[in-house]
């Protein structure tokens, strides 16, 4: 007689990427990451199907699915929807139980989250209707310098000096950057200035919620080494090295919640 295996999935549909994580009991079993399209249901399903294919599973094998991110409001495949703030907290806690502060920089927003030892949110703050410190902002900057988004951070780290930026508004910063290039400033130095300006700006969020060690950096922007360094300098902290792709943390937290919700609902013992 075969023992029934329990799989739990988290699907995080953000503005730039859709992510999924499947847990088998308490272990990460498979993951999926695809760019988000206009149709958030389709994006979520694509990410989920990618993880299912990787793990050799079909959707019916999943005991429970939690949807998160902005796409969670239209996720017919999910048993439950939870905000990404709660999910990032659970995801970071799952990987690193010592984490008490999370910086989450995603495609369209940026959050400072304080959590307790159980991964429950104690306080949080978000950027207000401004793209500064988001993936979308960096995407625009990568466009200005005609470099790949993933190369932006390394380029900033190669700077020999820091060019001050007066604006963190995406539109104004783009104009300012073009003026600085015209003035003869080196792209790496301008990018260094941009990364530090963003880091200083988001440090305001931490003034509201406070910082406690350990500090974790999640979301797509966490892959940007230049931003990580700038944040470490601005907040005077050392960021924990993530064990998995930091862009998957929301989906991971959703999968962790899927596991606990389904247990509470008596779907497995």
């Amino acid at each position, binding site marked *: 007689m075969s023992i029934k295996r329990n799989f739990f999935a988290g699907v995080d549909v953000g503005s730039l990427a859709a992510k999924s994580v499947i847990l088998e009991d308490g272990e990460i079993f498979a993951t999926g990451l695809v760019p988000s399209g206009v149709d958030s249901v389709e994006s979520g399903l694509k990410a989920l199907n990618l993880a299912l294919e990787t793990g050799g599973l079909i959707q019916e094998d999943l005991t429970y699915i939690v949807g998160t991110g902005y796409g969670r409001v239209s996720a017919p495949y999910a048993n439950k929807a939870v*905000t990404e703030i709660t999910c990032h907290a659970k995801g970071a806690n799952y990987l690193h139980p010592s984490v008490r502060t999370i910086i989450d920089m995603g495609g369209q927003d940026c959050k400072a989250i304080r959590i307790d030892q159980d991964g429950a949110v104690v*306080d949080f703050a978000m950027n207000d209707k401004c793209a500064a410190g988001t993936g979308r902002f960096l995407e625009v900057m990568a466009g200005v310098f005609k470099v790949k988004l993933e190369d932006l951070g390394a380029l900033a780290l190669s700077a020999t000096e820091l060019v001050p930026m007066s604006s963190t508004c995406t539109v104004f910063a783009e104009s300012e950057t073009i003026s600085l290039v015209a003035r003869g400033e080196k792209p790496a130095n301008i990018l260094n200035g941009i990364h530090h300006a963003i880091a200083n700006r988001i440090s305001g969020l931490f003034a509201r919620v406070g910082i406690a060690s350990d500090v974790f950096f999640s979301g797509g922007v966490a892959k940007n080494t230049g931003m990580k360094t700038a944040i470490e300098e601005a907040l005077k902290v050392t960021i924990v090295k993530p064990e998995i792709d930091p862009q998957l943390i929301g989906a991971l937290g959703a999968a962790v919640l899927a596991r606990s919700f389904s247990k509470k609902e008596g779907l497995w013992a």
Partner: protein
Amino acid sequence: MAKREQYEYPSELREEFEATDDIHFRDGSRATAADIWHFMTEVAPKKYPFAYTQKKYAGGRLSRDIHLPSAIKHNYLLLTMNDRINKSRENGAPVIFVQGGQSVDPYYAAGGIALRPASVGIWARGRHEGLGLNEEVVRSHKQKEKANHAISFEVCQSAGYEHIQEGDLPVDMVAPYTCLRCSDISYGVEAHRHGPNKAVKLMNIDYPMRHQADKPWAVTYFAQNLRRLTSEIAKRAGREVTDEDLSKEIKLHNEGRRLAIDTAELWWSADVPPTNSVDRRALYQMGGMEVHGDPSASLTVLRESNAYIRDRVKRGIKADGVIDKPIRLFVCGSCVSPNAFRIEEAGAIIVGQDNHWSDISTLVKEEGDPYQNLAHAILSYPYEQSVEGRAAWTVEQLKKSRADGVLFLYKWGCNTQSAIARMLCDTVKREIAIPTMIIEDHEGGSEQSEQMLNRVNAFIEMLG
């Protein structure tokens, strides 16, 4: 089967509803429950389709707690606002534009009708028939944008001034108490002063600042302002106004205030929520006697509702569609109401709002000079005191309502509330250690964006 686009009151409810009380109006007329049922099921769905929307994101949907008569009657009074205000004006009652969060006793004592900015908006909305939700939102945004241009600044309650300036709402006077709660009213008053339409008289009921109620000169000064006000309104209404008129009016409004306080205390004491967030808000607001443009009508609905709430609380009856033990949110700040439907879907309920509650919960002394008494009460509004004073009162309301968390919301451009929010929330955290969240609203109307709802949902999850 295609989902119905418009909400319909269940026809099987008709008999039960028609057995409820009539609404008595100030002019002596009345609407029977049968009249109300007919209007809300036959007339209004065609006249005001936007109100019957089923859209998930619409914050202004009709309450689904259909066994609570006030849920239907309150909406009846809002949807008949245009017809009723027009009729009252034809009968000689001047309409006066006032400020949010102020009492309206003196305006009615002198024969006028006082409308706050939100009510002026409801009146304006009623003049456009047949609009669906999106069409109504576009109409209202257009008006707001014109007002922003006229005022040269993106302020909050500006559309009313624009309606007055354009002459498409026959307001007779602009005469707010210039309380401290709102910076936008000052912008609006200035814009009106400098606007091309000089026909509508502007009268500021000047509100002295800083520990006002403790200073006899301030009370006397404000009482003189109130006398100027009632005299001007009475002149326009073609009648005299006596101290006795104001005393009677204060007694009537005090009854509303007392009923609202009693209803709130009942609601807060209940083991399970006796109403949903939308109906609770309407019931508390009725105590301000302004919301329907007819204090007598508000009072009849409030009297009946109070008895229903008492009964529900006594028998442990929970409102339809509300969960047993929701997270209890208290909302602070002016001019933004979160989408209560989405809040309830997320497992929470709104137990109170400080905004209008400040004036509603301030009773006026009934013996002695009515002008002095009224002035003293108005200058005692907790919302208008120093931040420390307001915070102390807010903490008291949070304890009474057994709130789990505070949402402080204000409009972008609101200098007053934006300056107060952080200090007040810090005091709340320090005094009673409950979580707070501040959100600046950049949007108009009740269809809030996913970004705002996301923050509120995350806050509810954090409290849960």
